[in-house]
């Protein structure tokens, strides 16, 4: 599992490559928690799962856990780049009903930043 984190204003963008299971979900949780500690202003989360080749219920639980964390701060959570294999588990688990879905990280970012614009305007 390869995780890369990037912050764009109040958005945390996490790109995942490899397999998200019991072992790697723990790494994912720790890295996101560290990012929140260092940048308490973070509000929204975008998970790019296009490079994810495997996920199971432990991986889904870790995504749900992060969803709860960002929802508590009033943020939005996007899952982007969903491939069919990962998609059927997001579907079966009901996660698709709680997170937002976008094709790419750019699209998700535009939607988050557009929202801020329209609230302001």
């Amino acid at each position, binding site marked *: 599992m390869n995780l890369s984190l990037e912050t764009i204003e109040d958005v945390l963008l996490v790109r995942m490559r490899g397999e998200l*299971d*019991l072992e790697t979900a723990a790494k994912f949780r720790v890295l996101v928690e560290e990012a929140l500690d260092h940048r308490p202003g973070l509000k929204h989360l975008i998970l790019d799962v296009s490079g994810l080749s495997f996920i199971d*219920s*432990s991986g889904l639980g870790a995504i749900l856990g992060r969803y709860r964390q960002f929802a508590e701060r009033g943020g939005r959570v996007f899952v982007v780049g969903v491939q069919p294999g990962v998609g059927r588990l997001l579907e079966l688990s009901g996660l698709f009903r709680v997170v937002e879905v976008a094709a790419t990280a750019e699209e998700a970012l535009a939607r988050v930043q557009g929202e801020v614009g329209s609230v302001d305007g």
Partner: protein
Amino acid sequence: MGEEEPVNRFSLTFPSLAPNVSFARSTVAAFASQLDQFTLEDIEDIRIAVSEVVSNVVIHAYPKGAGPVRVEASLYHDRVEVVVADNGCGIADVEKAKEPAFTTLPGERMGLGLTFVQAYMDRVEITSRPGEGTRVFMVKRPGSGVSKGQLPEG
């Protein structure tokens, strides 16, 4: 299943450590791939099921530290049978454990592990005795990706 002999089989034991979840699912997947009729989706279903059941042993079976996990697989001309067994704490109520969203460890456990196993394998039998351990027996047949109806055997 009568006296039918498997064309191949293996028996594997390892400690209930998190890195072995991935090890177990890739081992069973490599073995099951010997049956040409399995599609990539069938193999993916097997990987998920093994991942769930072995994760359960790692998380639930041995609250005091790692213990042994036994994985056995038998390959027949028309299916693979997989057993994952532990000598851990056991499950108090197996029927409840199989329900979607039932978990004894809330937090980040979703209670979907055994639900996925039932969705992706053709047949699943869980036997457990509190204090003695748990045994999950699973069967996967080629091309069964979607259906999970009753099987004519057993």
